């Protein structure tokens, strides 16, 4: 591999060949699974905040680490390489004939290796690593625990994003592409199982990791997968600092059946979720129209510190699971125009007819190289033309969403006025892969000083098995009052026997806990 200067410097500094960060990774799986368990009985109720101050062990774990000033992102103007992790997980599948199976990226490997892309001076190939359990806990309430939802391949896919995120923040690379599987954009805050081939949300894990480690705040995620990125949307729905834009085949015609233009974000984040349902059969022209007239202008206005492309490849005209007409040229052009800081692979199941060409196109486009000769064997320019009616539909969607974007502050103001101290909504979530029906009540604290903490009461039904959990989530930029109130909420909930598990996600303190009300054991990640 080619080493960025920053990493080389690390090597030379320590003289041992591995910087402090790397050393931890070398410990690999053990480190990733770091968790602490303790039993809590009636007399010994957890008094979290006090114990944090009293117990040096805990201090080292949560206190000191989180109080350490975040690093600053380095200036990337001098960086000229595109970071790439190719992690095809050749030894992992959901099941042998499932679309998410071993050889999904096999032909992509053949194509990009045969092209010699890894040899190009514009490309720096990185090695994946495992994400740590706390990286997962920063985003998800995993039921019953992280181990059950995030298997080793999931940890590597998420960890790959973190490796590239670090490379980006240290300015070793100008942009990056995580060409990885398994995917993640359907995974929501609560993870009872696999939905839409996803267990944990790679982009969300990356966003919260970068915020914690480098102190960045405003991030835009553009989901270009053919399916609505409902997981990512749900995770950041109430976060005004994350702009989530998803274009996808109209939810009335495709899984997961959401992503309509009225889904605009929680009361304090209205307009920060922008959905663009596309008519089935939309070709390059339609998608690039949406990009030019809606996505790019909004991004320019939002001024994010980081733009992520949640990069599904199933808009392709040969994809077996969807009905769009996007081409490899279209994908390359999309990434050239969008110029994301980082792209993360999501879906895309035309593993022979699309992926080898689409991925070659995206890599070349991100590296600033000529992609004009990348095309599918049967592709002919002009083979797909947008229907006039569909064009009109798109124009209407674009106009409506531009209006919403323009009025977002007013929308927030009038919506917030409608609610008192709390905003509640009920949701039903279906897990197609694992056949789970989940009922949720989400409560947001309508705090005047911050985006407010969130609690989720979640009840999952699967055949012969019901689980109810309660989770408390404190945003990284929450105010002190919200933090204290939320922690109290967690403490009180430990006594509720109707919940099997109670979770605390304190991103401000970088402290994550899961309590089993049956065994009365608490795990700290």
């Amino acid at each position, binding site marked *: *591999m080619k*080493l960025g200067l920053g*990493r*080389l410097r690390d*090597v*030379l500094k320590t*003289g*041992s*060949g*591995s910087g402090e960060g*790397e050393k931890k990774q*070398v410990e*690999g*799986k053990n480190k990733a699974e770091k968790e602490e368990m303790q039993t809590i009985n009636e007399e010994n109720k957890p008094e979290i905040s006090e114990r944090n101050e009293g117990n040096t062990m805990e201090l080292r774990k949560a206190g000191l680490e989180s109080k350490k000033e975040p690093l600053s992102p380095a200036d990337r103007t001098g960086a000229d390489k595109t970071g790439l992790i*190719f*992690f*095809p*997980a*050749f*030894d*992992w599948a959901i099941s*042998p*004939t499932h679309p998410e*199976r*071993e*050889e999904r990226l*096999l*032909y992509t*490997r*053949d*194509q990009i*290796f*045969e*092209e*010699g*892309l*890894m*040899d190009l001076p514009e490309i720096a*190939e*990185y*090695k*994946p*690593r*495992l994400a740590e359990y706390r990286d997962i806990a920063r985003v998800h309430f995993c039921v019953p625990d992280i181990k059950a939802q995030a298997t*080793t*391949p999931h940890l*590597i896919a998420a960890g790959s994003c973190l490796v590239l995120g670090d490379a980006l923040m240290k300015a070793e690379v100008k942009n990056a592409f995580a060409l990885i599987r398994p995917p993640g954009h359907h995974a929501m805050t609560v993870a009872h199982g696999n939905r839409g081939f996803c267990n944990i949300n790679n982009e969300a894990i990356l966003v919260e990791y970068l915020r914690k480690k480098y102190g960045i705040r405003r991030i835009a995620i553009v989901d270009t997968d053919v399916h609505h990125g409902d997981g990512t949307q749900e995770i950041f729905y109430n976060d005004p600092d994350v702009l989530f834009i998803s274009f996808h085949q109209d939810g009335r015609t495709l899984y997961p059946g959401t992503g309509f233009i009225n889904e605009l974000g929680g009361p304090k984040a209205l307009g920060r979720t922008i959905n663009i349902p596309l008519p089935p059969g939309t070709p390059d022209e339609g998608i690039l129209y949406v990009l030019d007239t809606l996505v790019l202008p909004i991004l320019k206005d939002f001024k994010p510190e980081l733009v992520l492309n949640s990069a599904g490849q199933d808009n392709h005209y040969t994809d*077996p699971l969807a009905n769009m007409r996007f081409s490899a040229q279209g994908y390359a052009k999309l990434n050239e125009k969008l110029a994301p800081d980082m792209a993360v692979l999501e879906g895309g199941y035309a593993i*022979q007819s699309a992926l*080898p060409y689409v991925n*070659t196109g995206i890599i*070349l486009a991100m590296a600033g*190289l*000529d992609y*004009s*000769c*990348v*095309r*599918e*064997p049967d592709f002919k320019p002009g083979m797909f033309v947008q229907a006039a009616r569909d064009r009109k539909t798109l124009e209407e969607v674009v106009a409506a969403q531009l209006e919403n974007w323009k009025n977002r502050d007013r929308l927030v103001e009038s919506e917030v006025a409608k609610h008192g101290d709390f905003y509640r909504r009920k949701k039903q979530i279906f897990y197609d892969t694992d056949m789970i029906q989940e009922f949720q009540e989400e409560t947001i604290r309508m705090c005047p000083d911050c985006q407010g903490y969130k609690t989720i009461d979640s009840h999952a039904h699967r055949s012969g098995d019901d689980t109810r959990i309660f989770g408390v989530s404190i945003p990284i930029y929450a105010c002190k009052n919200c933090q204290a109130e939320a922690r109290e909420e967690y403490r009180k909930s430990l006594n509720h026997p109707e919940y099997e598990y109670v979770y605390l996600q304190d991103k401000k303190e970088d402290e994550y806990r899961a309590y089993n009300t049956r065994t009365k054991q608490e795990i700290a990640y």
Partner: protein
Amino acid sequence: MLIGIDVGGTTTDAVLIRNGKVCSTAKVSTEPGNLMNSLLEALDAISRDVDPEQLERVVFSTTVITNLIAEGKTDRVALVLIPGPGINPASYTYPDSFFLKGAMDYRGREIHPLDEAEIRKTVGLIRESGFSRAAIINKFGQRNPFHELRIEEIFREIYPECKLELGHKVSGKLNFPRRIATAMLTSATRGHYIEFVEKIKKSLEERNIRAPVYILKADGGTLPVEKSIEFPVETIFSGPAASTIGALALTPEGQTSVVVDIGGTTTDLALILSGKPLMASKGAKLGGFLTHVRAFAVRSIAVGGDSVVRVKDSDTGTKQITIGPYRAGPAYCMGGKETTPTDALKFLGLIEVGNPESAGEAIKAMASALGKSETETASLIVDKVAQRIADAVNEMFFEWEQEPAYRVWEVLQEKEARPENVVGIGGGAKGLIAEIAKKLDAKPVIPEYAEVGNAIGAAVARPTLTLNLHIDTEQKVYSVAEEGEIVSLNTTNFGNFNKIRLDEAEAMAAELLRERAENFGISEYADEAEVVNSEVFNVVNGWYTTGRLFDVNMQIPAGLIPEWKRRENV
């Protein structure tokens, strides 16, 4: 008796080994213009008193190909390229390229046919332009060589004298640009290389030496000299390979070592991990082109015993020592004009050679410029050189640890190794080895005959061989990348192709490797073959499995011949 000769850039080293013992050694200066003379001079020096009948094996390592390329004395080659979709071929920097229509995909399925009229026109043009050699390379030609073979036929028809190289015969690995470069360099050097081999054979005949003659490759393996004509570029970088095998031969089995060869201008490094020399994960770079040639992971850094030492003002105003990257002749204590690390080593009494008074003068000049004592100054120089080398060693280990991983188990496999030994090979700057070892927390080892370790390596290296088997049961074919034939599975003993198991595919690869080894005249090493990687993928159409793809990579890895290994047991 075994003979090993390494023709290096400065000296040509030779050894004669009898019953696992070094009987005699020789070192002669290399004549850059006439490698053959140097080689024969060294050969004669050690075999003078030996009955040629008693010689069992002669191995050469030579820079002949490297020199040809460096000096631009290679032949012109017309490159006939069929790139298909992908990177814009206009971005390639290969000379004399002729691009043709046509394309294969990753499964070896034709996606665009050839244009016969275009081929005929191009062959005519190549002939008119005076090329006598051409290389035909198709993207994914290794998955289906049909296009390369058809173009070859047209050449045979209208320009039969043209010497041809086909991409799929040169390498079966994925990476079209590297295959272009490897085919181009193979074609461009083969003519000269054949002349070189002919001369060697003639000279040996004149000396009545009838022992088998081998040539050392960049991967530390030997190849019968007649066979090496097929793969001339594989003989590049055999010098560092010889040193590494030499270090392997001269240190205890199974250990992890850094091989350090300190020269005048540069220091060459290689790694031996648990007794196995580390291969570069990708092919070597040659003449500015990345190739498919397998080579050891070696690193050359621009600091050596004769590097010029200077005192400079740093940005902060303090005085600093800089070392290299240039050499201005020998060290001061050896009659040169500039202070060098060798002078510092001499001053500190860490080496034998050199004039102590001149070393003192050299260090004194530096010390006064630096404003430090002479001992401090000399120690600082030695420390700085040792640190540079130790840093480079750490970097090599780090890069090895950070090599990309494509499978879950590869990520979980925690690569971590630190050197147990720092092995000094070659004649230079022995006193530094201990300093480097100290920095790496390892044991310094300077084996007996270290100064001809490279020649020992050549003498005792065993053959290497690779075999990459690809089976596509949906298309009912298999291919061996190194052989370049697409063979129907009907010719095999498999009954139901869709029931082939991975262990059966591995057994088939082992059998094919045995045949290939016989073909190379090295069948006695076939048992040393190991599976490097093997994998199987389902081919699923819709929701049904319609076939399976197998890839089995096998190799006879670099190592030592049994004659040498037996000696350790005695």
